[in-house]
């Protein structure tokens, strides 16, 4: 194979500067061909997905919004060990640990829990390393198609426990099926 014919894509063409024939120089034939090409697109299926009504099917490995899980008794699993924050390459997670008081046993599973758990959604890259780092199976990236809602204020993108912890009714529903 010579250098002239080599082409990775197989679509290499030699440039030619040949004189145009009479019909070519009129351009009318070419324009007509072009018109035929565009009119064909009028009848093709549109590829648009009309977003709010239709949602594109997510891949099986899709990682959506985070959720802090509860166990089968509805207690928060997170023990505020900080491994997720350590594993996070974007340094999006911050937390503050607190000791569980007597009488709070039905709220938190371990003796230590996160009183503040925040993820900065502007930093998060949804890599899923927090999920892998968690020894308590407390944080998961859900399959939710809904990502981070738009907002005008940067403060609104820092998600606290109110937005991250699994809702109680969901936990109750989970215990019933299990």
């Amino acid at each position: 194979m010579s250098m002239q014919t080599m082409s990775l894509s197989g679509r290499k063409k030699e440039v030619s500067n040949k004189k145009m024939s009479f019909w070519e120089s009129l351009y009318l034939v070419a324009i007509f061909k072009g018109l035929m090409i565009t009119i064909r697109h009028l009848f093709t299926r549109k590829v648009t997905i009309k977003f709010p009504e239709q949602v594109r099917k997510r891949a099986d490995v899709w990682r959506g919004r985070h959720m802090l899980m509860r166990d089968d008794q509805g207690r928060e699993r997170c023990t505020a060990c900080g491994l997720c924050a350590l594993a996070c390459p974007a340094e999006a997670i911050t937390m503050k640990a607190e000791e569980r008081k007597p009488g709070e046993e039905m709220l938190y599973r371990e003796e230590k829990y996160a009183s503040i758990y925040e993820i900065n959604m502007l930093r998060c890259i949804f890599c899923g390393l927090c999920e892998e780092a968690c020894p308590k199976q407390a944080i998961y990236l859900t399959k939710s198609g809904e990502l981070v809602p738009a907002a005008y204020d940067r403060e609104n993108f820092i998600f606290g426990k109110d937005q991250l912890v699994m809702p109680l009714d969901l936990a109750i529903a989970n215990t019933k099926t299990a």
Partner: protein
Amino acid sequence: MSDFVIEKGIFITVIFALTMLMAMYSTLAERKIAAWLQDRVGPNRAGKGGILQPLADGLKLFSKEEFLPDTPNKFLFIMGPAISMSIALMTSAVIPWGTNLQVGGHTVELQATDINVALLYVFGVLSVGVYGIMIGGWASNNKYSLMSAMRASSQMISYEVPMGLAIIGLIMIDGSLSLRHIAENQHGMNWNVFYQPVGFLIFLVCSFAETNRTPFDLAECEAELIGGYHTEYSSMRMGFYLFAEYASMFISSTILAVLYFGAYNYPGMDWVAENWGGNAASLIGFGVLFAKICFFIFFYMWVRWTIPRFRYDQLMRLGWRMFIPLAIANIVVTAVVLVWYDKL
């Protein structure tokens, strides 16, 4: 006499409203067709299928800030879009929209005025359209706008020459400058496009240039030619320029349909007139003319999303060195053929 005035008044109002409506919905049609040709969906949020989109656009334009540059002549700055708009609307006065209607034993002619120099009038009005662009570009007090206006007006002036020459072949066949006469002569399937294909082609391309549509839209393009003559215009003044473009597109489609595609004539018109009455034939003719106009408007858009813009020197070469000789050759050939037929 007053009956006549009222009748014409109503008719002109109807035509004016129709032109406005067509121009309004051309903006939507343009966006929709552009989307469809590119495998997209297009505007579909305002109303069902985006049917209220033109209203939303208009509301937006009206509520935008009216910016006035520090121009030496504010009057002319405002006159620019106004001239463009009035020119686009004035041409419709001589267009025959159909044959006669019988309303209460009283004949209503579906034409604002039938003058025997209608074609000259159309060309005269069209050439004034250059002023709208030129004045707008100059009064903006912006060098880029001025250059754009120069470019656009030289294009319009250049293409008026072959346009006028192309029409001569048609006039030679028809023997009249009256649009009504030209329309009536195409009764049956005697459409002028069959007798004057080359003339039609030249006229079509020149119409694209006169209405500043792609591939001749050097007057306006945001990307490489800095907006164009309306760079300094904002809100509804800008809207007026764009609206005028769509109005003139509608009128130029009408002229194309009337001159070359048989106007309101359709095959089987006599049969309809005999069996269903003259009014039915006339109304169907009106609808047929509108179908033809809609086709040409679609064609304008179809071409716009197919071919790229001309370079300025290519544009001038096409106008002066190709179309003018071609148009003159068309005249000569037409004349020779006419004399030949006379001899037979």
